[in-house]
């Protein structure tokens, strides 16, 4: 685990370093993933580019009721404890609070959580459920894309080796939208999830009919998985116990966990998707 440690003070400097050492460098922010990967030799960069000294990349900024912007260097702890997030986008704060332990959350960043791209990533699934976009910058300028399309596989994203994730943009929440994030793990937040799910529902004014639903399943596919069939079971329908069970079973059918995971068998994970999806919908519509 030998590397040179570089500390750019601006985005431009960071991009220049990424270009200069393309393919031989890795960005470090919180470090809670990369330091481990380097120790286990699954990442062997010759150059580690510490971007934490770049100012202005950590923020939670509300845009006059027109949505939310989160800087990539915002710590998970800041997401968890932000009173504004707890009020306006509670599932973000809720999921952030389920990542590791306090000491990890104090340094871990949302950008790192997304770029590390594990299918269990806490912030990934709630931000996908919220239809977020990400802004990326590279040598040829900036680009934006839906977060949903950012992930391409376990630990893989569309980010090129000379690009940097800058910001997550979350659109305004529909009035009457509420959601929940459930993480199932052996000992609570400090463990990686066996299965984790996010359900976000918007109800009609009668509070009984579902106008829109987003269901995102984690740790049961290479990337955060939108359970679109399950969503369609709920959309436009009046919510009752039978419908919840049907949606939960549909979500379970859509889940495709890998076999041989030490955290849970294929059958167990699929069953837990069913149980947790039903639980989440009941919680939201109670």
């Amino acid at each position, binding site marked *: *685990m*030998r*590397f*040179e*440690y570089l*500390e750019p003070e601006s985005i431009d400097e960071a991009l220049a370093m990424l270009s200069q050492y393309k393919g031989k460098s890795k960005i*470090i922010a919180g*470090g*809670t993933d990369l*330091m*481990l990967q*380097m*120790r286990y030799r699954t990442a062997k960069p010759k150059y*580690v580019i*510490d971007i*934490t000294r770049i100012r202005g990349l950590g923020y939670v900024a509300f845009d006059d009721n027109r949505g939310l912007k989160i800087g990539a260097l915002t710590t998970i*702890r800041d997401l968890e404890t932000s009173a504004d997030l707890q009020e306006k986008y509670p599932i973000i704060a809720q999921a952030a609070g389920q990542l*590791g*332990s*306090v*000491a*990890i959350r*104090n*340094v871990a960043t949302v950008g790192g959580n997304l770029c590390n791209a594990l299918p269990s990533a806490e912030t990934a699934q709630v931000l996908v459920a919220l239809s977020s976009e990400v802004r990326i910058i590279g040598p040829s300028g900036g680009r934006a894309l839906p977060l949903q399309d950012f992930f391409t596989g376990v630990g893989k994203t569309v980010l090129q080796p000379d690009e940097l994730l800058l910001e997550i943009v979350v659109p305004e929440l529909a009035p009457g939208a509420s959601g929940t994030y459930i993480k199932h793990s052996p*000992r*609570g*937040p*400090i463990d990686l999830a066996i299965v984790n799910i996010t359900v976000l529902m918007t109800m009609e004014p009668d509070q009984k009919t579902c106008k829109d639903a987003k269901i995102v399943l984690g740790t049961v596919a290479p990337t955060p998985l939108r359970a679109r069939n399950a969503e369609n079971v709920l959309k436009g329908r009046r919510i009752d116990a039978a419908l919840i069970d049907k949606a939960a079973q549909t979500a379970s059918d859509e889940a495709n966990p890998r076999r041989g995971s030490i955290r849970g068998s294929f059958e167990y994970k699929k069953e837990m998707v069913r149980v947790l999806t039903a639980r989440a919908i009941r919680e939201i519509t109670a």
Partner: protein
Amino acid sequence: MKKLIELKVNDNTYEVLIEPWWNLARVLREQVGLTGTKISCETGDCGACTVLIDGKAVKSCLYPAMRARGKEIVTIEGISANRKGELHPLQEAFIEHFAVQCGYCTPGMIMTAKALLDENPKPTEEQVKEYLSGNLCRCTGYTKIIEAVLAAADKT
């Protein structure tokens, strides 16, 4: 190539020669000479390496020492500083409530507990358990540790 850096630990400045890939836990123990901070899992799970950086609990085994320049680092040795030989209320409570067996998790536990009490001076039992969940103990079964933290909170 080793680099000469300055670290501010417990209000003292130390000049140390380090390789850029060394983590803060190792540098604190081996270069600065403060062995109160323990290394156990070195994977960010057990919390034995917990120190405070700018007041926040951090797992120093995952923290690049290079990043620690310019930050205020507090280790277990530093929390009784300026107390004229008296222990911090947390240290006293851990002793009084027999929250120490082998002692290996203890510095990390106390540093995390200190971060908790600095943020939330009167936590509930549930809040203590949640906050300390990143610190593992193989000896005590945690009961006395939680008792000690709550007792220290009562005292301050």
